[in-house]
């Protein structure tokens, strides 16, 4: 390029990040200077090549979630004297009761053992510190935060954090309890299903026997009716044959008598 000023202008021109006056200046220069025109075309070709370089597309799925353990430890230090233990327990019970009654509970058997997740927790990642499926169906990559990080307005969400803190304090026990309850509930459910299946089978067998008996009876009745009809037809046929034979006899007698008179 002719000089440094033109180099800067050429780059601006190359990316079309240039004002009209400078663009006209470069246009004019490129028409006149073959060396700069060659260079410009070469740089434009490099830009085309750069378009071929694409980064890989990994499943990222980052998500910021609060670290429940850190939140519990840090806040416990200044809240333990502030909140009576009985109140804390009551709050935990209330929160857990509300969560269990309102949320859909999902139990997953993963490599880390059983985990319990509620429908509410799926949209509120700070509820539990487990991992969640990403919104786009890819494994989420959670980024854990202590709850006081980020300069967010803690005062505004203080009550919510209180409730969550209480819930999280009892989360492991609750989780185990929920898992055990779920197992017991599963066994009862399976037993109940077996009973219902057995009852259903018995009922179906009874209904089948009744239907078979009905079919047999219907068949016998129909057979009886058909036999009677056949019998009646035989009788009628016999009568017809008797009548025919009588007519034939009468005809023979008539012919015989007629022949005797002619003689």
């Amino acid at each position: 390029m002719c000089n440094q000023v033109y180099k800067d202008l050429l780059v601006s021109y190359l990316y079309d990040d240039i004002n009209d006056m400078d663009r006209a200046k470069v246009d004019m220069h490129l028409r006149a200077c073959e060396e700069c025109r060659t260079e410009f075309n070469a740089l434009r070709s490099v830009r085309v090549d750069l378009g071929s370089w694409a980064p890989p597309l990994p499943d990222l799925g980052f998500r910021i979630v609060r670290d429940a353990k850190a939140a519990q430890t840090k806040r416990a230090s200044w809240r333990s004297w502030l909140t009576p233990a009985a109140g804390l327990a009551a709050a935990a019970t209330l929160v857990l009761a509300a969560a269990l009654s309102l949320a859909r509970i999902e139990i997953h058997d993963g490599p880390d053992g059983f985990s319990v997740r509620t429908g509410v927790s799926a949209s509120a990642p700070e509820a539990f510190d487990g991992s969640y499926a990403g919104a786009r169906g890819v494994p989420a990559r959670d980024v854990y935060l202590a709850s006081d990080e980020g300069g967010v307005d803690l005062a505004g969400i203080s009550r919510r954090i209180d409730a969550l803190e209480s819930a999280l304090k009892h989360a492991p026990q609750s989780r185990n309890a929920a898992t055990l309850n779920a197992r017991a509930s599963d066994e009862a459910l399976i037993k109940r299903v077996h009973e219902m299946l057995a009852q259903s089978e018995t009922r179906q067998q009874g209904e089948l026997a009744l239907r078979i008996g009905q079919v047999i009876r219907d068949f016998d009745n129909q057979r009886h009716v058909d036999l009677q009809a056949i019998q009646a037809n035989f009788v009628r046929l016999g009568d017809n044959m008797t009548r025919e034979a009588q007519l034939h006899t009468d005809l023979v007698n008539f012919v015989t008598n007629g022949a005797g008179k002619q003689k």
Partner: protein
Amino acid sequence: MASTDEELVARSIGGDLDSFNQLVLRWERPIYALAYRVIGREEDARDVCQETFLRAFRALGGFKGQAKFSSWLYRITLNLCRDWIRRERRQPLAQTPEGVDLVELAGEAEDTESIEELVARKEIGAAVAKAMALLPEEQRTAIVLKEYHGLTFQEIADMLDCPLSTVKTRLYQGLTVLRRQLERSNVTRLKDHHV
């Protein structure tokens, strides 16, 4: 209607974690791409990307909206990339596959692209990655921000805390080096053959 970055930032500052995670979802790919192109390593780029959002969340209270949220994220990412390069004291690694899997490539082909053109594009991309890895960090960063993220020269200058003319010079020098590198490789011949 989707919320703007500014709206999501405001809600995030107010303590709404979901809003911040929407920002993460919106910007994770550009941030990852920036980190990958600057440091050239997939796993490290992923770590830089994650750290970027973590730092952004921590510093969210100090974000006054004096710049675009994306520019702010880019600046954090570039600082982390710079730290990584200094810490590792090594040039970016151009990670390119050893061979070309035609079956895998076929799935990536665009409608109007033949498999030969796709192979050529992949090879050009690999050559570009190698050539970019040879550039000084400043030139590489300027090219990445301009070429792949469409920032204006002024935005790049603000982000890198340098004069506008410096950005243009870095771009010019970087593109000139790339041109020489690509001409030396087989890519030019291959490209001329296919295009």
